[in-house]
């Protein structure tokens, strides 16, 4: 016997909601899913009327659903937002080519302006690790007020677990916040309207709405530890589906001893971009290329930052470590 929708009590339910255990039909699911995101946006005061908001678009399920729902809600509730898609061309063949094609289709489907920022355009070189920075700088060029990203409840819960496993108390404290305010001249405020949306529902929303999204194995395999955290979270969800919200609730309510030292977030000594080190990742990478030391941008070499900033030469031993390996 088919299970009835708990909301309209008429239609056949098509999904069991992991957050609450209730069952919904397709139409009620669409309404409820959108309303919840609307509630998140309103209650957390994520936007102000008249703002230009860039939706970080990768062509994947989360950003595709985000773009769709933002467009729907902006019209339904007259947010008065000026929405656009912003994508970064990382110059990596394969993965990003297809995903960019998806974003380009999304642009037509949702009738939203699209800007693709390429690394070539920004810096003249390519590297995946600085997508975030590229988004910020790209957005800045376009006079964007805010960036919203597709991070969902599962992503945030995974990050909470990850930071507990790594003992990273500084990240643990801020990883559940729904928005970050501007962190300096070059850094735009960011927010996560899908924070309380389960991955399962995002995927089903995209599937039932027949949204066009791109999925593939990310070519950068996540490090073993994050993979473990993800698998653990998915197992938790299968034991008790509400556990993902429980992890988020835990993350939101941790109280950290005041005596625990927190690293101060500073800015890059060269370009002024937000950075926890003396030089930001992009500048280190660039410096490495200029000095003919390609490995400078890989791994941790904060000790050398002061030298780089003051244009001092590196010692022979230091240089040897950072040169390209000859095979």
């Amino acid at each position, binding site marked *: 016997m088919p299970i009835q929708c708990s909301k309209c009590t008429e239609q056949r339910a098509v999904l069991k909601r992991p957050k609450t255990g209730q069952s919904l039909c397709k139409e009620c699911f669409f309404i409820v899913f959108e309303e919840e995101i609307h509630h998140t946006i309103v209650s957390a005061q994520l936007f102000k009327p008249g703002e230009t908001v860039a939706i970080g678009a990768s062509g994947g*399920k989360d950003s595709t659903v985000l773009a769709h729902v933002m467009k729907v809600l902006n019209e339904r509730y007259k947010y008065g937002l000026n929405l656009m898609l912003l994508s970064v061309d990382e110059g990596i063949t394969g993965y990003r080519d297809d995903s960019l094609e998806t974003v380009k289709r999304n642009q037509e489907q949702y009738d939203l302006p699209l800007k693709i920022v390429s690394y070539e355009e920004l810096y003249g070189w390519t590297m995946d690790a600085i997508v975030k920075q590229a988004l910020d700088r790209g957005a800045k060029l376009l006079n964007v007020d805010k960036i919203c990203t597709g991070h969902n409840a599962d992503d945030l819960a995974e990050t909470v677990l990850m930071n507990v496993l790594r003992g990273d108390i500084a990240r643990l404290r801020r990883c559940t916040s729904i928005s970050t305010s501007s962190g300096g001249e070059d850094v735009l405020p960011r927010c996560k309207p899908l924070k309380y949306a389960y991955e399962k529902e995002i995927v089903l929303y995209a599937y039932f709405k027949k949204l066009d999204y791109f999925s593939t194995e990310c070519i950068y395999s996540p490090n073993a530890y994050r993979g473990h955290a993800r698998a653990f979270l998915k197992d938790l969800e299968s034991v008790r589906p509400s556990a993902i919200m429980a992890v988020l609730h835990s993350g939101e309510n941790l109280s950290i001893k005041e005596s625990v030292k927190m690293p101060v977030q500073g800015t890059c000594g060269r370009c002024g971009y937000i950075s926890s080190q003396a030089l930001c990742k992009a500048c280190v990478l660039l410096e490495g290329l200029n000095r003919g030391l390609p490995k400078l941008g890989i791994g941790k070499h904060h000790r050398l930052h002061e030298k780089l900033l003051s244009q001092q030469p590196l010692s022979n031993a230091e240089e040897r470590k950072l040169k390209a390996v000859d095979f």
Partner: protein
Amino acid sequence: LAAAALWDVLGILLGGAELLFDGVKEHHVTLPSQSEPWNMKQLLVWIGQNLLKERPELFVQGDDVRPGILVLINDADWELMGQLDYELQDKDNVVFISTLHGG
């Protein structure tokens, strides 16, 4: 107890799950006849033996679907239909969507 009937099942793999099946998204399969109706548990075993091309641990775990892979039977969440115990009907449409990669 008519045991002669064959079960025609349409399996669809999405969200990256198809990569474990040579990139093929749609699989029309006819399950061999058996005295009892096929259930999802048996279907998973059959898929593992007949369709899965690589890294089975990314699709099945124990006798269940790997956590993070959504299953829809005739476009409804299988959690509403008894999951592994669901008895397949002829012409059923089973969709597997991986939620595990790509954001």
